[in-house]
């Protein structure tokens, strides 16, 4: 069947569902109707969408860590340990589960039990199954989200949503291109239509599940318009399947003005595109990810990176911020390090929250720039799809119109090369085949030349590599020493 951006009809969904639910033994425990009842029985305090709505109303930025370990009891202990210091909880899924390698995950669980410590980089929710996942939800007082990186996340969604998780991260582009190598894009888009439809079905039963496309993509010098295009497309695809609570994301680039402009433009563009597509009944929020690229190994320096992200999130007015830890450069954090990241973030949010970043022509210009870039690329996507957004997306990625820098997926062109300008904003060094207005391209070129002149060297791929390492080497801009 050809991929179309159209609500999946119930027959298609149900016949596919049978297959999904038998793809691993734990699928059989899930009963949708019973899941709805379970979700309806949860207190308001565990509902993600309610927390987001309240925060948006009060202009607060909520704190969410990443966290997941192999064994259920340890996972619960970890989240309980973090719960006081954050507003929203995660369950970060391990990398085997993300690629549906449940046997490997089982091996990881077994080895972890034997070793007495987690040997998996996340929580293998599918292997643990419905009841164990419910034990997680029931041991906590705050809303819990599934955070992963799974091109085919159907079974994971069925299990975790029935288990009372109230938010689900991901999308057909954002959980393919940065996370997979050979998964065809139309396949991951199709599988995410299933997930979105499932969320839509819960919504129809009165259960609001928050859906969050993964904003930061490769986390490495992604220009705001690139991730915005992906976020807006995935938002539209989700709305079509009946999702109503959407959180669009963005990963900190490091230049404060650009980061604030990114969050503000993202929110405005979302309303623009969602409403143009005829959706009016939706709940929108934004998420700001603290720096997603390479971190400094030194923990005091890592705190600084964390704090710069927390400040930017608050000044930008993001609804929530995803928090890093001082162990980021080294490995999955201990629960103590995880909490330290949250504490530093809390302090910064509390010190910055009430402050207002003044409007200025510079900020206005940056917001306008991002909007024009997004509109230019999305116009081409719609054009390529001859009106169908899903088809347009597949073709746009194939054509390099949508192009994510430094991503592993073979469907991605990888021709666009970003680089920082002389004030540290992420600009375009090589546009590849991304269709941007001429004056916009000239603007980027001028900004990059300005930096090249300041550094007395040509802009080159070496400059890009220097920028990739920069923050881990205690710089924003990878200048020659």
């Amino acid at each position, binding site marked *: 069947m050809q991929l179309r951006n159209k609500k999946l009809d119930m027959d298609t969904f149900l016949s596919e569902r049978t297959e999904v639910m038998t793809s691993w033994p734990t699928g059989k425990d899930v009963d949708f109707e019973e899941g709805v009842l379970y979700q309806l029985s949860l207190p308001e305090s565990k509902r993600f969408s309610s927390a987001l709505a309240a925060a948006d109303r009060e202009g607060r930025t909520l704190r969410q860590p990443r966290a997941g370990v192999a064994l259920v009891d340890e996972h619960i202990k970890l989240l309980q340990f973090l719960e006081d210091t954050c507003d929203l909880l995660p369950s970060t899924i391990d*990398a*085997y589960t*993300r*690629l549906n*390698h449940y046997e*490997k995950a089982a*091996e*990881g669980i077994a*080895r972890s039990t034997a070793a007495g*410590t*987690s*040997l*998996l*980089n996340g929580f293998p929710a599918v292997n643990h199954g419905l009841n164990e996942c419910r034990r997680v939800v029931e041991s906590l007082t705050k809303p819990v989200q599934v955070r992963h*990186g799974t091109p085919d996340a159907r079974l994971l969604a069925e299990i975790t949503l029935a288990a009372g998780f109230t938010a689900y991260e991901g999308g057909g582009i954002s959980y393919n291109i*940065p*996370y*997979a*190598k*050979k998964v065809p894009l139309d396949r991951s888009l199709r599988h995410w239509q299933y997930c979105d439809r499932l969320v839509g079905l819960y919504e129809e039963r009165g259960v609001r599940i928050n859906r969050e496309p993964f904003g930061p993509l*490769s986390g*490495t010098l992604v220009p705001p318009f690139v991730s915005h295009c992906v976020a807006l497309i995935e938002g539209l695809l989700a709305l079509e399947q009946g999702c109503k609570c959407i959180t669009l994301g963005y990963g900190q680039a490091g230049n404060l003005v650009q980061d604030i402009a990114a969050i503000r433009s993202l929110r405005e563009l979302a309303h623009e595109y969602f409403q143009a597509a005829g959706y009016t009944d939706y709940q929108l929020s934004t998420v700001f990810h603290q720096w997603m*690229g*390479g971190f400094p*190994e030194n923990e005091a320096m890592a705190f600084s990176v964390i704090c710069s992200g927390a400040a930017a999130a608050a000044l930008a007015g993001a609804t929530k911020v995803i928090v890093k830890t001082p*162990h980021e*450069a*080294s*490995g*999955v*954090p*201990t629960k103590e*390090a995880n909490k330290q990241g949250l504490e530093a973030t809390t302090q910064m949010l509390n010190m910055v929250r009430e402050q207002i970043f003044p409007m200025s022509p510079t900020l206005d210009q940056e917001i306008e720039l991002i909007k024009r870039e997004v509109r230019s690329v999305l116009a081409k996507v719609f054009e390529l799809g001859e009106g169908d957004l899903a088809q347009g997306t597949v073709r746009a990625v194939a054509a390099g119109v949508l192009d994510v820098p*430094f*991503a*592993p997926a073979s469907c991605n062109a990888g021709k666009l090369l970003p680089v920082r300008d002389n004030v540290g904003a992420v600009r375009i060094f090589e546009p590849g085949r991304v269709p941007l207005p001429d004056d916009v391209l000239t603007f980027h070129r001028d900004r990059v030349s300005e930096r090249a002149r300041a550094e007395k060297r040509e802009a080159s*791929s070496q400059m890009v*590599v220097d920028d*990739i390492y920069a923050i881990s080497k205690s710089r924003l801009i990878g200048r020659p020493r």
Partner: protein
Amino acid sequence: MSETNVILGVIGSDCHAVGNKIIDTVLTGEGFRVTNLGVMVSQDEFIDAAIEVGAGAILVSSIYGHGEIDCAGFRGRCIERGLEDIVLYVGGNLVIGKRDFSEVETLFKDMGYDRVFPPTVDIKSVAQSLRQDIAARQ
């Protein structure tokens, strides 16, 4: 067998692509003939490629934390498939969590890797030891 033929890749289900691209660029710049298998490479894919191009070394990356599981038994598998003398390097965030590097080094040396590198290693300096280690095995 060309002494500067090397195989590069990220093992297991690991999607971290950035370091891989950089190692490729630097080693290519240093004169190596790099066969880069990219991310999510299985042990046998590494060995197939090494046999195909007659590589002097395999450079395994593991960034995402499952290195302890994914990298185990690789030396044995190389020997089984006739690559007795191949130089085996491994680097990245090899284990789950922040652990003392010397411990990690011992763990992976015991698995049969010739050298073990932390994420902070300077790739240019690796090029040098790589050349020597390959020469020594000829």
